[in-house]
């Protein structure tokens, strides 16, 4: 498919470097699936959907900075959805979000709660201001918080909050790979799902740029079950744009 023209209808400042961009067009995504967001003339980058019609973006480099220059009535190109989303279970679900990793987990929480699941969200961020979608998670379940600077909740990593969680039916996790690796090491692999981040080029499962061993993040993922990841290079190294191995 060619990029669909999406006009920005509203921009919401979520945190110092995080904004949500609402569009005039909705996309049907399973939480965890992603789209390719084309900032014309600049770059095209993968993004989760945080609402039916919105992405939530952390400014980290050229593409996201260019996106931050855009305002209502500006438009971008969107292709997708791509990949496989989270497999949404019932029972007690624990969501572990690091930073902007909360983007795909918020709609997941809302969907799952609607089907009667019990939700516990563990949110981590550097500081209180950067906690994302806290109210959305609170609206559908329990929220526990960890911040690096202790400005809210427990001081330290979000992974520490996991220690108290013994009874769960499924763990959903999205955040920096190093954090996700720590989560994987602490939980029952077959009861956990992780949304991975790799450099996405084609998004179509063809070029192989996004491979974690033989698994394509863009097509077989970005969501993988913990037991699948256990046998791979996940958490050990990733590939840069050239395909060179880079230590995590």
């Amino acid at each position, binding site marked *: 498919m060619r*990029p669909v023209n999406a006009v920005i209808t509203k921009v919401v400042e979520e945190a110092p470097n995080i904004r949500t961009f609402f569009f005039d067009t909705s996309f049907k995504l399973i939480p965890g699936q992603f789209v390719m967001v084309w900032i014309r003339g600049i770059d095209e980058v993968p993004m989760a959907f945080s609402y039916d019609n919105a992405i939530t973006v952390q400014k980290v480099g050229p593409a996201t900075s260019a996106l931050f220059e855009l305002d209502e009535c500006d438009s971008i190109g969107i292709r997708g959805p791509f990949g496989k989303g989270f497999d949404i279970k019932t029972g007690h679900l624990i969501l572990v979000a690091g930073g902007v990793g909360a983007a795909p987990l918020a709609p997941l929480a809302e969907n799952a709660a609607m089907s009667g699941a019990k939700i516990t969200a563990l949110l981590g961020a550097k500081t209180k201001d950067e906690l994302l979608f806290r109210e959305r998670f609170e609206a559908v379940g329990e929220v526990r918080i960890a911040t690096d600077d202790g400005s809210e909740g427990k001081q330290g990593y979000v992974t520490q909050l996991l220690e108290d969680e013994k009874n769960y039916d499924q763990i959903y996790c999205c955040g920096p790979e190093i954090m996700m690796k720590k989560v994987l090491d602490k939980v029952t692999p077959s009861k956990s799902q992780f949304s991975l981040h790799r450099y996405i080029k084609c998004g179509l499962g063809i070029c192989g*740029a996004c491979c974690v*061993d033989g698994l394509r993040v863009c097509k077989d993922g970005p969501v993988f079950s913990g037991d699948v990841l256990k046998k791979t290079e996940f958490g050990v190294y990733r590939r840069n744009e*050239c*395909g060179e191995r880079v230590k995590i």
Partner: protein
Amino acid sequence: MLSLSLTGLKLKNPLILAAGIMGTTGGSLKRATEGGAGGVVTKSIGVEPKSGHSNPSMVEVDCGYMNAMGLPNPSYKNFQKEIDLARECGVPVIASIFGANADEFSEIAGTLHADAFELNVSCPHACGYGAQVGSDPALVEEITKSVKSATTAPVWVKLTPNVTDIKSIGLAAQRGGADAVVAINTVRAMAIDIESGYPILGNKFGGLSGKAIKPIAIKCVYDLYEALQIPVIGVGGISDWKDAVEFMMAGARAVQIGSAVGNNINIFNDISSCMEAFLEDKVWTLDDLYGMAHKK
């Protein structure tokens, strides 16, 4: 029933993973062999690490795909371990390589270890590489010659269809000592976003692959089969067993599969089993298919 010997390599079937498809990591090449590939070609590897063109680098169009990856690769200096990993599967691993001139090509072929080399003189969107060298018969002959003297492994030369006369380029490769030619690389193409007027690809234009180009590739293979003594390996738009059979009837000794792998990594197994059933039904062998259209 489908096994063959191709430029000295033993293949369990004539279905090879095409260059640039799931070809950057040992793990992904391995996955293609698990999907049934009789051989695998790596991503094209150059002298220095290269990050490629900026995104969008691939887009689905009406009847196929358009890409301008820009030859991202970790350089041959970082690639031997990926090849070695892939070779553990026991199917031939062909290293696709590219360079700006004969020296770069032979530097790589002289250092890397692989079951064969495929020379990419045909990528349509890499400034100073690919088709920019591969449209000139003299350059193709020179590069082939120098690679042949740098390695004892078989050398395949991959051709671009974006020329007035592909036979003349194939003949140049043959004169240079190529063991086989591979046809075709992608067809020069472009797509524009009508909402904004922007060319969609980061590189503005790219190469067309997939179903759209199959009839073009069939014609190239047919012509090369008539012109050359060395085997022709067919590639371009294969998405099922019928396409593979059509290529072999046009004169392809083996085929490569690219874009269609995206939606089905097991396509090699699927095609093998259908092809076997077809041959049994017709009471034909692979050799019967080979070049059949030339006898009609």
